[in-house]
């Protein structure tokens, strides 16, 4: 019993974990350096020392641009990697393990909320990714399309202007300003509330889920939170998980 490995299941490989770390670091850098520019009000006393903390407005601007380019590259790397995994057959589509939103997610979300308020006695059974995790994942795509793209336009405005149609010139810049800053605020609040609750504050994860470092998930969590994937694995590969606690 003592010489068996702790019951954990491999969830993310090294490449996914590196991609997540890059995303995490650049996200924080972008949020921190962009914050002062969104709220430069002299009445808000924090902006003065906050911007000095990032080396002044000029340095903060450089950090913001560099972090933005790294984040976009990270995102593109992720897409190329996932597509190549799918094409070479190393990753296969399965409704239980996919991150693609499925009709069952709507059902699961409804049942989950009913369970929260006590109108349902059973928790919905999730696959590899529950609907919140899927939302987390696709939020990055939304963010990249909206914030990433508008950020590139704002970082290289004279280059972007070459491709802009003349009829859009009178309003499109304003739209880019608004898109970039409003959606960034949405991303920051989303991460602060939803992601922090799921991965840090939630009872079983407090103070922090270690999955992002180790890539592994404790067996007990796996069975409880992703029962469909557990069942699938047991069916396809019986005996893959020897759970010492359950033998």
């Amino acid at each position, binding site marked *: 019993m003592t010489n068996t490995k702790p019951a954990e299941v491999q969830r993310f490989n090294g490449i996914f974990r590196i991609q997540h770390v890059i995303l995490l670091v650049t996200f924080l850098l972008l949020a921190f350096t962009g914050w*002062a*520019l969104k709220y*430069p*009000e*002299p009445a808000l006393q924090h*902006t003065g020392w906050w*911007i000095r903390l990032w080396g*002044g*407005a*000029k340095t*903060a*601007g450089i950090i913001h641009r560099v972090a933005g380019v790294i984040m976009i590259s990270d995102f593109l790397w992720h897409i190329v990697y996932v597509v190549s995994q799918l094409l070479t057959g190393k990753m296969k589509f399965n409704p239980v393990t996919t991150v693609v939103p499925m009709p069952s997610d709507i059902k699961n979300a409804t049942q989950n*909320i009913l*369970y*929260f*308020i*006590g109108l349902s006695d059973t928790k919905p059974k999730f696959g590899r990714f529950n609907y*919140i995790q899927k939302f987390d994942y696709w939020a990055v795509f939304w963010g990249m399309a909206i914030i990433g793209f508008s950020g590139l336009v*704002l970082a290289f*405005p*004279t*280059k*972007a*202007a*070459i491709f*802009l*149609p*003349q009829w*859009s*010139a*009178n*309003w*499109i*810049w*304003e*739209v880019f*300003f*608004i*898109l970039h800053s*409003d*959606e960034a*605020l*949405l991303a920051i*609040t*989303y991460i602060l*509330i*939803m992601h922090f*609750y799921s991965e840090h*504050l*939630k*009872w079983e994860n407090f103070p922090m889920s270690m999955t992002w470092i180790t890539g592994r998930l404790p067996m*007990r969590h796996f069975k409880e939170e992703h029962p469909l994937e557990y069942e699938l694995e047991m069916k396809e590969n019986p005996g893959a998980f020897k759970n010492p*606690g359950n033998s």
Partner: protein
Amino acid sequence: MKKLLLCSALLLGLLSLLPPPALAETFTCLACHSAMKGKVRTDKGSFIEVNIDEQRFSKSVHGGMGCTACHKTFKDNPHERPQADVSRKISELANLVSPKAKVDSVAYAACDDCHGEIYKKVSESIHGKNVIEKRQHDGALCLDCHGSPHYIMPQKSKESMVNRSSVVKTCGECHENEEIAKKYNLGTQIVEKYEESFHGKKYRLGHPGVPTCVSCHGAHDIRKWDDPASPVSWEKRTITCGKCHPGANRRFVASITHKPVGKDNPIPYYAEKGLIVLTMGTIAFVIFHVFLEALADIRDRVFRKKKEEHHD
């Protein structure tokens, strides 16, 4: 003997620390004009301040000049009426700028003596024409931007009204003033919109390179934007923006206006409204979800604990 020498050397050293001595004539005027309280009534009936802060004056760029260099009509004898002869050029200019000068229009024109080229530029600018041709008293001329000539500091000094750190505020004195905006048909939210732009936001954060008002609009030779000679005219705007943004084209320069986002430009207006609904809606849902989830988690841990233990 040695002691005496040392003492006098010390005394001389101390003397050199004092501000440069004002001219004798200045000193005489300031004997009274640095100690006057309240205001004085002029012949025309307006009340004016005639006291000079001697310390600030001596530190200013004009601190070494004598009073009558500008106040040319005054004679050395303070009891005589100020009727000294003035050159024709200055007296003509004094007539032109008289709407601005409450008291000594000759002194107002005297800037021309040293700053002739700039005075000419200003006279041809929209600010200058407003005073000289339209005879308006509330438009800008030298002192409205630079402050009292007695206390003008070098432009690089933070105390200067036209220093980088204060020039936006200085322009705003008129361009944020609703009465003036109404009278001259100016936009009222110009400074506000500048401060909301990327230029203005960075300016407020202390970025050393971003443009202020004068970087794009010019200073002494400022013109209305529809004047082809203005640096922000359609003809010249790509050149002006191109100073910092090489390759600026027509579509690029459209990105900076000082117009408020309103219904007259509906796409950004409704895009912003839509995004606010989307952002607030998502945040509301997320808070709702996390709140319920947290309550349910606590409930499961505290009240349904037995079930779990049994399960394990």
